[in-house]
C-alpha cells in the first residue's frame, strides 16, 4: 500500500507545465503540501467533478497534459465520466485515482471499493486504453513516468494506506481560479 504523501512529493517533483485538477477529498491537501503551484486547481466542494473538469481542460488545451487527482469516493459519484472520457479519448489526460476504500474526509465510512468494486476494472470496461494498478511507491513512480510521456488517456489506480491528512487553508475559489488561468494565459 502506498503512502500518498510520499507519492505526491514524487509527482510534484516531476511536474513541469502539466495542469492538475483535484477532487474535493484529502488528496488535494497532499498535493498542495507536496509543492503548491499555480497550475494546480483545488476543488473545494464540487462532488465527483474532478474527472469532468479534467476532461474539459484536456479538450480546451490539447497541447498540455492534464492530471486528474481523484479519489475512490469522488469517482464513485461520477462513474459515467469514465465512459465519457474513454469515448472522447483525450490523449493528454492522466487520471490518477487514490483508493483508500473509504470516505476519509467525512469520518472514514466505507466506500464500495472496501467490498467488491474494482475501479481499475471499471475503467478498463469503460474503454480506457491504458490502465495500471499500483500498490507500491516504485510502481506508482514507474506508471507516472510512462504516463507523462506516452499518450493516454491513462488510468492509474493507486491502492493507498489510510493515514490522517492535515487539511485546511486553501485560498478562496476565485483566487484559485485566477491564479490557475493567469498561469496558462487563459481568458474567459
Amino acid at each position: 500500500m502506498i503512502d500518498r504523501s510520499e507519492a505526491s512529493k514524487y509527482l510534484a517533483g516531476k511536474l513541469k507545465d502539466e495542469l492538475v485538477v483535484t477532487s474535493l477529498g484529502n488528496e488535494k491537501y497532499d498535493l498542495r503540501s507536496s509543492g503548491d503551484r499555480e497550475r494546480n486547481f483545488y476543488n473545494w466542494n464540487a462532488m465527483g467533478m474532478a474527472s469532468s473538469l479534467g476532461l474539459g481542460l484536456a479538450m480546451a488545451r490539447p497541447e498540455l497534459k492534464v492530471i486528474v487527482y481523484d479519489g475512490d469516493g469522488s469517482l464513485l459519484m461520477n462513474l459515467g465520466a469514465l465512459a465519457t472520457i474513454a469515448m472522447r479519448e483525450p490523449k493528454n489526460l492522466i487520471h490518477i485515482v487514490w483508493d483508500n476504500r473509504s470516505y476519509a474526509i467525512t469520518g472514514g465510512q466505507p466506500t464500495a471499493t472496501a467490498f467488491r468494486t474494482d475501479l481499475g476494472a471499471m475503467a478498463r470496461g469503460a474503454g480506457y486504453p491504458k490502465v495500471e494498478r499500483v500498490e507500491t511507491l516504485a510502481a506508482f513512480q514507474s506508471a507516472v513516468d510512462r504516463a507523462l510521456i506516452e499518450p493516454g488517456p491513462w488510468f492509474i489506480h493507486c491502492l493507498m494506506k489510510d493515514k490522517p491528512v492535515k487539511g485546511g487553508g486553501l485560498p478562496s475559489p476565485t483566487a484559485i481560479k485566477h491564479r490557475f488561468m493567469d498561469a496558462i494565459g487563459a481568458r474567459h
Partner: protein
Amino acid sequence: MSWAESIVSVLKKYNVRFLNYVPDAKIETILAAARQLGGFEALPLTREEEGIGIVCGQSLGGGRGVMLCPTAGLGNSINAVAALAIAYRIPCPIIIGVRGDLGEFNPAQVAMGQATQDILDALRIPSYRITREDETEKMTEGALRICYASEGPVAILVTNELAGWKEGKTKS
C-alpha cells in the same frame, strides 16, 4: 433563420466551440443546426452534472462550451452549478429544452418542469425564456453577454411556445 439556426449562429459569434449535451428533441434540433453550420465539437454525456464540470474545465482552459439538456437534467446537475460555476465564478451557459410545461404529455416531467424557474431563481442564476423565433437571436446573444460579463452560470430556456411540445400519448 429558424430559432435553432439563430442560436448556433450566436454561439459561433461568441466563439463557443464545445456543445456538451444530454439529448432531447429540442436539443437535437440545435445539434442538427450546428452540424449544418460546422465548426463545433459535440460531446454526448451520461449525465448533466458531468457537463457542468466539463464546461467549467473548458472555460478554465480558455475555451468556450455550453451545456445543452432538458429541464430534468438541470436537477441532475445542480450541485456542480453551485459548487463550481457559482463558487469559482466560471462562465457556464446552460441551454435548456423545456419539458413539463405547455402541452406536456408525460406526468413525470411536470414537477421538474414547473420547478425549473424557482430553482434557477433560488440560486440567483440569470435566466431567459425564449418564446418567439424573432427574439431568439437577441435573447441568446444577451444571455451570452451577461454570462461572460458576470462569470457565472446563465440559463437559456427553449420553450414549447417557441419549439413546440413533444407529441406523445397522455395517460390511458
